[in-house]
């Protein structure tokens, strides 16, 4: 097992951009992040996300592709 410290971008987010490209993308992401911070501040623990797991879908008529 490697004891090399994990790189937050390369290892955790799986991005392998040049340092210049990473900076450009982070700068472009800034206004998006400003919006996403609003999500992070919300308490939504009681809300089921709009993602429905439906194990019967492949059994529906004709869904054999």
């Amino acid at each position, binding site marked *: 097992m490697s004891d090399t410290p994990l790189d937050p971008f390369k290892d955790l987010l799986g991005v392998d951009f040049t340092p210049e490209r990473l900076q450009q993308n*982070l700068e472009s992401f800034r206004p998006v992040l400003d919006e996403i911070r609003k999500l992070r501040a*919300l308490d*939504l623990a009681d809300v089921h*996300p709009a993602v429905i797991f439906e194990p019967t879908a492949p059994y529906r*008529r004709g869904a054999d*592709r």
Partner: protein
Amino acid sequence: MSTPLWARPIEWLAPRIRAGKLSSESLTEACLARIADVDGDLLSFIHVSATALDQAREADAQIRRGAWRGPLHGIPLGIKDNYFTADMPTTVGSKAPGLEYPLRDSASAARLRAAGAVLIGKTRTHEFAWGNVTPPVRNPWDLTRVPSGSSGGSGAAVSAGLCVAAMGSDTGGSIRMPAAACGVVGLKPTFGRASRDGIVPHSWSLDHPGPLTRSVTDAAHLLQVLAGYDPADPACQDQPVPQYAEALRRSVRGLRVGVCRNHFFEHIQEDVEAAVEAAIHDLAAAGAKVVEFRIPNLEYGLAAIFAIELASSTAYHDLSLRDGLPAHFQPDVRTLVEMGRFVTATDYLKAEQVRAVLIQDFRNAFDHVDVIVGPTTPITAWKSGEWTVKVAGKDQSVLSVSWRNTFPYNLAGLPAISVPCGFDRDGLPIGLQIAAKPFDEATLLRAAHAYERRHDWKDSMPPLDAPSRAASA
């Protein structure tokens, strides 16, 4: 001067084709001539079918034999370059090397062909349907401006009469925004109403197929063909398909027209606001009851759609991303695909929670209203190359402002339509957006048609200079 064939809607053309007074061949020739005349400036088509006239002649032969298939029989349609087609290549607007898409018909292409339509060509899309300007397409109303996007090729082509109608796809507004910017009708049906099989995915839970047309009646004709269950699309629902054209006969007397005063009416251009307020007044004058309400949680909508769309698109392109392929994408698309990696799984799921909240908020609003109206876009078509626009005296990013009024209905999966409702002081079209309950496209079309009938906006054509080679009727 008589109206050229290429400027006519399906509702005018179809009865004449059926009666043998007009041939599909002459109509298709008129559209091909129009493409030859003006698409050098517009650049709305990326591929024109070599078999269009053969398809038209076959349609004429079938109709002569008494086998008329319906209002789309013999009608030349464009189809966005992110739909697979058996006889035309699909590029999704990308020149990146190594990308190949199957030569087979998407569900929509197959349904349109079965209805007898002539698929005249593929219209340009913003690369991977990930953007709102659709380079290099130009807006027919002002060639220095964008047609919006990502179905900008379809919007420009229908507006300028290069085809009678065209297919688009809508992930955050990509049918309705170009419809508004180009002065045509754009319909995004309910999520699950029409199959997405054979459309290159952009964001699985937000993508909707739908038509851009010259009139609301034409949109009803296309929806009639496109709507229906398809097990090949996991999101497609097996719901009854009503006769949409019948809904158009009903007035809006007594219809409850909702106006959501927050979000949709904030920071919009003065001329857009005036046109939409006039449209609301028109609906009231026609007997509708106007009901105002607010959905405060819409302030979290932009965050939600950013997180879902970015994460989904990047998941779709993930292997390409690892191989470095986005270096060959257009710079704006490359940035969007790459920065989707910064959205965490927690952000994504919180976005889906906000989405559930908004779906419930709209559900609650529909206890009191039948449709919701407002501006399709806060701004009219902006200059090509501009990334900020001045709205209400304040510079705003085109990226955030252009889709502000359309994306809520992608998050909620509701049917929504844009219909022309006038022009701004620069002569640029303005769109009125109408939304309805899930699978209630009939009421949506009824309200849109009632408004459309009160004006002649749909008969306005962009002032393109072109030799009058096309046939007239």
